[in-house]
């Protein structure tokens, strides 16, 4: 298998075991530069683990992962994470939390430049007015926006998002989905977005990778070409894909034995 020129992430027959349990058995897929990929799968199938492997927070037991043409441990500075919970430092204000990501990474910028870049990132997520607030003064959605700004501010090539909206209420979740699409369209970043929500994947992705239960492999790739913003209600193609996916997903979620 030769790498496509615009390929940014590649899993080639990746193996991973936790103790006696095989998590991944020859997991292979790739992501193109600038693509919005959703990884969809049943709970516990190792979706978040996929992101951890890309981000070098975990090592494989076999096979190869390449990120930006190199091994993950050489390319971690090209990516940034947004986790399921915001994971903000409670002692830092919103803008200082955005700067924390840059300070940790060591961007070589001076304080004023970092602050400037952090304000721009906060403005991009709609929090320009709240930069001086501490996390405890922000709502769940606002905290997650700060976490997104923190990821954007290190100017990564790839943003890895691990069910970032799952803890939010439905209306905030919907708004955040629209916003992340807008940010993706403005910045041209590659986004790998893990979710177990079929509608979320259908609303956001260029391509959905549907994962099986453990030992995990890609059982289906769904390419979506519908214009965004996508309106599930009056789109026949969307409705059909949704029905297919939900049927497949229901099969996966069924308990074994």
């Amino acid at each position, binding site marked *: 298998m030769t790498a496509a020129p615009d390929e940014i992430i590649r899993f080639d027959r990746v193996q991973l075991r936790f103790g006696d349990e095989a998590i991944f058995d020859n997991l292979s897929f790739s992501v193109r530069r600038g693509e919005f990929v959703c990884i969809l799968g049943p709970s516990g199938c190792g979706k978040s683990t996929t992101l951890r492997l890309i981000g070098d*927070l975990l090592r494989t037991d076999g096979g190869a992962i390449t990120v930006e043409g190199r091994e993950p441990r050489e390319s971690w500075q090209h990516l940034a*994470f947004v986790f399921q919970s915001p994971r903000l*430092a409670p*002692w830092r204000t919103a803008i200082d939390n955005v700067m*924390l990501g840059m300070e*940790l*990474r*060591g961007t070589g910028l001076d304080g004023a430049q970092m602050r400037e870049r952090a304000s721009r990132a906060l403005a991009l997520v709609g929090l320009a007015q709240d930069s001086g607030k501490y*996390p405890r003064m922000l709502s769940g959605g606002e905290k997650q926006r700060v976490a997104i700004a923190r990821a954007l501010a*290190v100017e990564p090539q790839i943003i890895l998002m691990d069910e970032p909206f799952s803890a939010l209420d439905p209306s905030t979740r919907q708004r955040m989905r629209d916003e992340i699409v807008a940010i993706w369209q403005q910045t041209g970043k590659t986004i790998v977005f893990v979710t177990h929500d079929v509608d979320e994947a259908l609303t956001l992705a260029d391509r959905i990778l549907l994962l099986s239960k453990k030992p995990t492999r890609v059982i289906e790739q769904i390419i979506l070409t519908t214009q965004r913003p996508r309106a599930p209600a009056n789109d026949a193609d969307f409705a059909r894909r949704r029905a297919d996916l939900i049927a497949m997903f229901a099969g996966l979620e069924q308990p074994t034995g």
Partner: protein
Amino acid sequence: MRSLSLNTRRKLAAHLFVAAVLIIWLFAALRLPGYVLPAPLTVLEQIGAFLVSAKLAGHIAASIFHVTAALVLAFVVGTTLAVAGHYVPITRVLIGRLAAFLNSFSSIGWALLAILWFGLNDASVIFVIGIIILPIYMINMQAALDQLDADLIEMTASFTRSWPRAFSLVVLPALYPFMLATTRLAFGIAWKVALTAELFGGNSGFGFLVNIARQDIDTPRIFAVIALMIMIAYLADRFLFAPLERYLTRHYADA
């Protein structure tokens, strides 16, 4: 009579209890010889004399110095050892055993050794207090490191591979509330150990005063020293440690 709030009634009960103790003390002192139980007023006069006498005030300052120096030393050494145990796995068992050993030996034993090693001076006293509170820092700071928010640590790891940056920007600030809580606990113990350490190995401080007063059978002075020690410990806890802990917990631990 209007009913009082629960809080007022609780405070009233505490005040009444203190008043009752004072009255019992007053009557008991009338019946007992002064060297067994001095009258409250005599003790109060002695406290006043302490506070206005430069020499005696010097002893108060000496005790505060001993405790503060020991806290600083134990904090630095104990926290460093705990950090080493956390990040350098092979040292963990060793450091755990050291803490267990230190935790099992008494202050009097250390005081006697300190006199032999350092003589009767400030160094002896600071050593004894420091070595008693050192395991408190080692054990508590290790527990604090173990309990750090794993999510926050993973977030940090996702942004950097630099240990110094991760430690100084995230781990250390996240430890502040634990450091203060441990210092608050250690201060109370240090203050009590200070009396023993100064009594055996010191040439200044409250313990030294108690030793002299004991030789002179000056019971009012012993009572005055005890009262002053309790007052200082109370004031430090109420007006220094408690507000600081509230601030740090609110600022560094509430997400």
